[in-house]
Each structure stands twice: as structure tokens, then as C-alpha cells.
């Protein structure tokens, strides 16, 4: 239910500004993922929300109530940490009930709450164990259970899956999504893994060096990245970029010449570009097709070919040394060292101006 609003939230450590005035609205019951490379400020932003860190400037509201002056426990939030932060000397029951015991709740109430949460997370059998005797996945569930018993308005997750192995990570991803549907509570989830972000989020917040770069639904970010950074960050394998410049403008028709010699014309209703402006062309690996005619064609030599049967990845080097990754659905019999041509269609191009911001292509 809880709606969260950040207004101009800024954080400075000494002289170093790590969050530059973040404005953000998170609707009730949303599953929001903060994603970005390490050091982008996503964890700091989460810690500001939790109250573990105090903002240098700005305001934080939950359901219209200002909370940034309150100590962490009074904000009605619960947090799941990267290392789970289970108290090693306490049993699972003691871990899960600690917050309630600190709050001096009655024994019966505590037993009921912990029992319920343990049931949901299939931890009932493990309540008397110490964290040391649990597997990674079980510890993860205890950490979540510890958050659940407090009936928080908002759940905060700080890279909770990064300590698990790949298989368990996929499983916990699904469990967390189910949990969100079951609890219908706002959840904020921090990760550097864009796959986690794409699969779990209702809304993704992409961050870079203390700034929010774009906020939107996963496919919105994938289809219409606001800038070159988001375009390169979302999607795997990452988008290919080509430098180029505008050579001719005829009404809305812009002729663009890439550094590798490829030329094409596209219609841009945005008229901000002028001749000789630098632009960046972005093409997803799956938008490049080998051996077919298109609006433009790159020539290159394949350096490595990964044939997985259902799909093929081709790593190309162009004559001027650009690296291109091509993702082809299905098998393709190409050897490394072979020279091949790959083509693209204007409709699948992403264009970014001199400031690296998105320029809408109209055809």
C-alpha cells in the first residue's frame, strides 16, 4: 500500500557527493528495482531510505508522512541484507523474533507471528537451529522471515541473491516474486544484475554515479532507453555502439556516416542535430542479421563463434577494429576467421545525440 516519495535527496560523504538530488515516486505495492554498476549510489539510496544513513539534503515521505528524521526502526521498513546479517549466536526463532522482543511484544504474539512467517517460508522445522547449520537458501529465507514478522510497510532488499549460486539464485528469484504477490507490499530491491532487474521488477530505476538515469517498466527501458548508458546497461549481451556523424540534412532526412564507412538515411522529427554533429548508433545483437540484405551492412571477420544449437553468438571485428556481437536464433555454420556481412534495419536502430541522449527515429 505504501507510497514512497523522494524529493531532492542528496548525500555527501565529506566532499564527495554520492547522490545528486534524487527525485522519485514509488507507488504502493510496486516491486521496484534499483540497478546500476557498482558505486552508482543505489545501495546508498536504499540506506538513506532505511535511515541507516542520513541524507545531507532533501526529504523522504511514506504515504505522505515525512520520515527522514526518524530512526530506522520507526520508519516501518524492514531490510534484507546481502550477507543476510543473521545473528550467528541466536537460533532461527531468536533471529526472527529479535525485533519483536526489542519492541517488548507479548510472548504469545511473538510465537504467533514467527510461526506464521516460518510457515510461509517453510522454516518451521528449522526454528531451533543456529544460522551456521543452515544452507545458503535457508539463511536467505530466515533473513526474509525476519523482515516479514515485523509487518513492514516496505521491504528493502540489498543485493540479497548475490551470495547464492546460479541455480539457487533463479529459484529464489521466483520465490521472491511469488512472495511479493502474496504479501502485496511495496518492495525495493537493489542489484547490479540487470537480469534480476528485468525479471522481477514492476519498475526499474537505473542509476549511474549518483544520478537516476531512467525510471520505467522493464520493457520500456529495453525498447526506449533514454540514453546511451541505459541502452548499454539493459540487455544481454550488451548493445553494439557505432560512432558516426551527420553528413547531410534534407528537411527531416538526416544522412549519417559511421566511422566504419557505412552510410544510411533516417527521418528524425527532432531537429536539434546539425551537420557534423557526432552521433552514436546503437544496435542490439539480435537486431543484426548475417547474410541478409538490410538498410545497412557491416563487413567484418568473425573472431569467435559460439554455437549453442538453439542460438549462435558471432563476435566480429570490423576493418577499423570495432567489436560487434551478433545474436542469431538458430544454428549457423560459420567458422572463426571467416569474413561475413551483417545487416540491420533502421526501425531497430537506437540513435543517441552528442549528449548521449536518445533521439527518436521516425523511419
Amino acid at each position: 500500500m505504501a507510497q514512497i516519495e523522494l524529493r531532492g535527496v542528496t548525500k555527501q560523504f565529506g566532499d564527495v557527493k554520492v547522490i545528486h538530488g534524487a527525485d522519485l515516486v514509488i507507488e504502493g505495492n510496486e516491486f521496484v528495482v534499483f540497478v546500476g554498476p557498482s558505486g552508482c549510489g543505489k545501495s546508498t539510496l536504499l540506506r538513506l531510505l532505511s535511515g541507516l544513513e542520513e541524507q545531507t539534503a532533501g526529504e523522504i515521505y511514506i504515504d505522505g508522512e515525512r520520515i527522514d528524521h526518524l530512526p530506522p526502526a520507526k520508519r516501518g521498513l524492514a531490510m534484507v541484507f546481502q550477507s543476510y546479517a543473521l545473528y550467528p549466536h541466536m537460533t532461527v526463532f531468536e533471529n526472527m523474533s529479535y525485533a519483536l522482543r526489542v519492541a517488548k511484544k507479548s510472548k504469545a504474539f511473538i510465537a504467533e507471528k514467527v510461526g506464521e512467517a516460518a510457515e510461509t517460508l517453510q522454516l518451521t522445522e528449522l526454528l531451533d537451529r543456529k544460522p551456521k547449520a543452515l544452507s545458503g537458501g535457508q539463511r536467505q529465507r530466515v533473513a526474509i522471515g525476519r523482515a516479514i514478522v515485523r509487518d513492514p510497510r516496505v521491504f528493502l532488499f540489498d543485493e540479497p541473491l548475490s551470495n547464492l549460486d546460479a541455480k539457487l539464485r533463479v529459484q529464489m528469484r521466483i520465490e521472491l516474486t511469488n512472495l511479493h504477490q502474496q504479501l502485496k507490499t511495496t518492495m525495493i530491491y537493489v542489484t547490479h544484475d540487470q537480469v534480476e532487474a528485468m525479471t522481477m521488477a514492476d519498475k526499474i530505476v537505473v542509476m549511474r554515479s549518483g544520478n537516476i538515469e531512467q525510471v520505467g517498466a522493464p520493457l520500456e527501458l529495453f525498447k526506449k532507453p533514454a540514453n546511451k548508458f541505459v541502452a548499454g546497461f539493459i540487455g544481454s549481451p550488451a548493445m553494439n555502439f557505432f560512432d558516426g556523424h551527420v553528413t547531410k540534412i534534407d528537411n527531416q532526412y538526416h544522412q549519417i556516416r559511421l566511422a566504419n564507412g557505412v552510410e544510411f538515411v533516417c527521418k528524425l522529427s527532432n531537429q536539434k542535430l546539425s551537420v557534423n554533429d557526432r552521433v552514436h548508433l546503437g544496435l542490439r545483437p539480435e537486431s543484426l542479421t548475417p547474410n541478409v540484405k538490410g538498410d545497412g551492412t557491416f563487413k567484418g571477420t568473425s573472431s569467435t563463434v559460439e554455437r549453442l544449437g538453439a542460438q549462435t553468438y558471432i563476435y566480429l571485428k570490423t576493418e577499423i577494429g570495432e567489436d560487434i556481437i551478433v545474436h542469431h536464433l538458430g544454428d549457423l555454420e560459420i567458422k572463426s576467421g571467416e569474413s561475413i556481412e551483417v545487416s540491420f534495419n533502421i526501425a531497430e536502430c537506437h540513435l543517441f545525440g552528442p549528449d548521449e541522449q536518445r533521439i527518436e527515429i521516425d523511419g
Partner: protein
Amino acid sequence: MSQKKSGDFGTWLMHIFLGFNALIMLYPIIMMALSSFKTNNEIFSAPFALPKSFNLDNFAVIWNETDVPRYFLNSTIVTGISVFVLLVIGTMAAYAVSRYKFRGNIMVSLFFLSGLMLPLRLAIIPLFIQLKALGLVDNLIGLICIYTAMSLPATVFIMTGFLRSLPSELEDSARMDGASELRIMVQIMVPLITPAMVIAGIYNAVPIWNDFFFPLIFIQSPESRTIAQGLTSFFGEYSVNYGVLYAGLTMAALPIMVIFIIQSKRFIAGMTAGAIK
């Protein structure tokens, strides 16, 4: 390093060298203990023989006729209280230095660290005058104050090392759970460093128990003497009765040796704690 082909010449040489050293370390202690059961006569006539009987006469003399039991009590009081106070306030200070960012943190750390390098023995004159003014000369409290102060830098140093190694997420987690700072320290963090406290405790308790320099200067009256210091006067009194002297030494050595043999791993870790990074 794994054991390699045993039986070659080098391995034999190694065992002879180690065994010989072990014998040299152990034999004097065994001789001391054995001699404590002997009469003067036996000691002179058959010094290397086993005692004729393991009678406890020499120990009875010490127990009944000397102040040695009293010395034991005093040493126990001084060591016990010093180490307890030391661990409490040392851990508190180490906790502040290692878990909080505050202005002057580096200054405070340096203050404690520089304490490591000050040989308090050389300041014995002002210390004497100071304790005299406080009425703490010839008083066990005076010794407790000195030992506590003297051992604080190393304790803070050792505890800081251990406290720094605790993940800050535990603290954050407890904070989210609504625990106060005091509660976080007492219920979450300190229980996790009890092994470190045992190490720091041993590191300090052994030298305090064994010390005789400070009592030599600060304690005069027989009823306040510690065991190490008390032995010196006891040696004056019984200088011709070898059996009793050996018994006194054995008695003084026994408690700490027994604890050491039971807890040798912890003792070794504890006593070398200051020298191993």
C-alpha cells in the same frame, strides 16, 4: 608442509634436536616438582632420585606456617579485578574506536597506540608520588589501577582488531530491528567476540599474575603481598630448607601450569596475540 619420507637421516636429526630441547625444557620443572616432596637430607644425598615417598610435609609447612596462602588470595584478587575491569573498559573503548566514525577517532586511536610504547617502569618515581598522594601505596587497589592502565593499550589494540572484523551489516540489521546502541553492543556484537576477550584476558592475566616489579615498589606490609613478590621474602625466611623452598615454587607454579596444560591452545594464542598480526 607435509611430512616427507620418514626414517631418513635428516628426520632423525630433527627428532633428536626437538626431543633434546623438550627434555631440557621439561626436566627442570619435573625436578622442581619432585624435590618438593623430599626432605633436605634426600635432596643433598640423592638429588636425582625419586622421592622416597610423596609426603606433603613441605606443603603443610607452607600452608600452616607461612603467608603464602594469603599471597595467593591477594594475587587472585589483583589479577581477577584488573582483568575484569580491563576487559570491560578496554572493550568499551575498542568498540567506540572500531565501530563509530567520529571526529577525533584517529586521535583517540593514536592515544591508545602510543600507550603501547611507554615503559611504565621508567615512570615509577612519579607514579610512586602520585599513588602516595592518593593513599594507594601499600594497597591492592593501587596495583589494580596500575595493571589496568598499563594493560589497556594492548587490550584496546587486540579488541579493536577483532571488533573491526565483524560485519557492519549485523549492526545495521539490529538497528533496523529497533535495538538501541547499548543493546547492539551488549546483545549482538560482544557475544560474537567472547573468544577474543578470552585471548585478551589471558594475554593480560599471565603477566599481571607473574609480575613482581610493581609490588616490590608499592607493597610493603606482608598481608598485601602478591605471590610473586611474597616468594622473595619466603625465600629469605626458609633459605636453608630446600624442600620447603621447592614446595613453595611448585605451589606457586602449579595453578597457572594446570590451566595452561588444559587450555594450551588458547594460552599460546593469547600470549602471542600482541606479536602476531
